[in-house]
């Protein structure tokens, strides 16, 4: 047989006609526009393989925590701690509920920002496969975040319903805890950017979990007001996305308890962290895939 590609049409396989520039542009148009959605679709399909563990965790966590705090710890706390300090109008359970919800969102988000990112880049490098298609590194990151948003919505919605069942949500505005939860989770996108720089797994994630995230869940005005901490520890809370998210959640659950400008600061701070980490992560992943 002949191997001359173009000059002997009878013997050689018919090579396809060359694509026109318009055809080339067209073929990539949908990927350019909707790439992140395709990535999220893929991740949701993979997640559906673990749906029962995920749903059990999403329901079990709030049940256990609210039971422990509402029935257990609350009996030790003699006075109410909300606005007005001891013996105010807000019960201890009402005080901790928004913080527990945003903490749950934080845990889901940081899990995906750490293990989820390194899974895609290293352990089962599906992101390399995605990048061989028309998708770009930036789209892959955004798609992964989109998937995390869906996962967080499921988690915090269930949390919200369980809080309602415990009767710990005084205001109907409490429904806004769902977007607040999302904001709380996305405030950790810098962790995703950090994860994307990791070449070798030496237990960095365990350290991060134990030294940064877990302590912050305790020292961010979550289970007791930040003002209870000695003054020199309070800046820790001001820097913590968890404090901002918890306080923001409380404004909707039973607030307002603070001046409006401070509420605005919470929103701006959380949004800035989310956007900064998102952009940085896109850059790092793009560079890592381009090797």
């Amino acid at each position, binding site marked *: 047989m002949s191997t001359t*590609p*173009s000059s002997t049409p009878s013997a050689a396989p018919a090579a396809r006609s060359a694509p026109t*520039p318009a055809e080339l542009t067209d073929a990539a148009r949908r990927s350019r526009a909707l790439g992140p959605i395709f990535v999220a679709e893929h991740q949701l399909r993979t997640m559906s393989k673990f749906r029962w563990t995920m749903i059990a965790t999403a329901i079990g966590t709030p049940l256990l925590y609210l039971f422990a705090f509402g029935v257990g710890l609350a009996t030790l706390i003699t006075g109410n701690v909300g606005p007005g300090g001891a013996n105010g109008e807000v019960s201890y359970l009402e005080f901790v509920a928004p913080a527990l919800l945003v903490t749950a969102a934080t845990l889901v988000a940081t899990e995906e920002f750490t293990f989820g990112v390194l899974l895609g880049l290293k352990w089962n490098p599906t992101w390399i496969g995605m990048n*061989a298609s028309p998708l770009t590194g930036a789209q892959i990151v955004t798609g992964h975040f989109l998937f995390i948003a869906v996962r967080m919505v499921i988690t915090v919605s269930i949390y919200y319903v369980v809080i309602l069942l415990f009767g710990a949500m005084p205001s109907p505005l409490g429904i806004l805890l769902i977007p607040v939860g999302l904001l709380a989770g996305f405030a950790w996108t810098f962790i995703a950017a950090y994860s994307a720089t990791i070449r070798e797994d030496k237990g960095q994630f365990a350290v991060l979990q134990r030294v940064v995230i877990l302590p912050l869940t305790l020292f961010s005005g979550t289970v007791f007001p930040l003002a209870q901490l000695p003054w020199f520890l309070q800046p820790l809370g001001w820097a913590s996305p968890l404090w901002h998210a918890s306080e923001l959640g409380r404004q909707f659950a039973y607030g307002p308890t603070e001046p409006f400008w401070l509420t605005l600061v919470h929103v701006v701070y959380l949004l800035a962290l989310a956007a900064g980490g998102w952009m940085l992560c896109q850059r790092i992943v793009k560079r890592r895939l381009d090797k």
Partner: protein
Amino acid sequence: MSAVVPSVEQVSDPVIHAAGLRKVYGDTVAVGGIDFDVAPGESFGLLGPNGAGKSTTMRMVGAVSTRSDGELSILGLDPDASGPEIRAQLGVVPQQDNLDMELQARENLLVYGRYFGLPRRTIAQRADELLAFAQLEDKAKAKVDDLSGGMKRRLTIARALINDPRILLLDEPTTGLDPQARHILWDRLFRLKEQGTTLVLTTHYMDEAEQLCDRLVVVDKGEIMAEGSPAALIREHSTREVLEVRFGSDRNAEAARRIGAIAGLGGDRIEELPDRVLVYADNGEHALAAVVDSGLEPITSLVRRSSLEDVFLRLTGRSLIE
């Protein structure tokens, strides 16, 4: 494989054009300025040892790795500007499979098709056809984790075809597979070639290159050493036959020296390897007779046809698989 081979000059409208293509990582030069063109429908190979720069070249052609210098165009587009447009036309079989291990075989094709923005119905139909093509119909619902190496490789090829690509890039498609799995793969690739798909593959297996490539370049240390069809390369850089003789590891050097002195065999046509001596000759049996006549007593002897391995050995002085 064929007498008529397109050389770079004859390729009128290449689907891939590279000139002075370079990739540098810090102080390391991975690809040191290479030139090649690939014609539509052609099956083009990059042959070379590990670390020769084949995979880096493939990633640059695949529009995922930014070149450091030189010209590169794929289907007339510059990957720096039109990465997604180029990748929409490619099928990529990477050196390491990156299938989603948690998903079933068929699901891997479904999610991958979506990346190209294809309608679900089109993808579902193609997924079934491609599973049949890859002989994986009965594994459609199997989790990828449970497939054998050869099956994963076939699934990766099926996945690479989900967008009906114009160019299929295969980076060491059969490395690590057993002989039977390799032959099944070659057969599938040959069918694609017959259908007019442009194939670009890297390999360090000479038999693979001989089976699949119309034309190839021999790459070593980031540079092209030679270019042509497998047959032409062998004709140009080797003899028709090769005599392999073994004398025992401590006697090979001495034997090689003595063979080199035999009149008519020619000193520069002998290659001394640790375990054997290669004698390049147009007639291997005659060369063997000459060796035996000279009083040498090889432990074993073998006359075979020259292969690309010999070409590589002559061009670089090194073996392909180290």
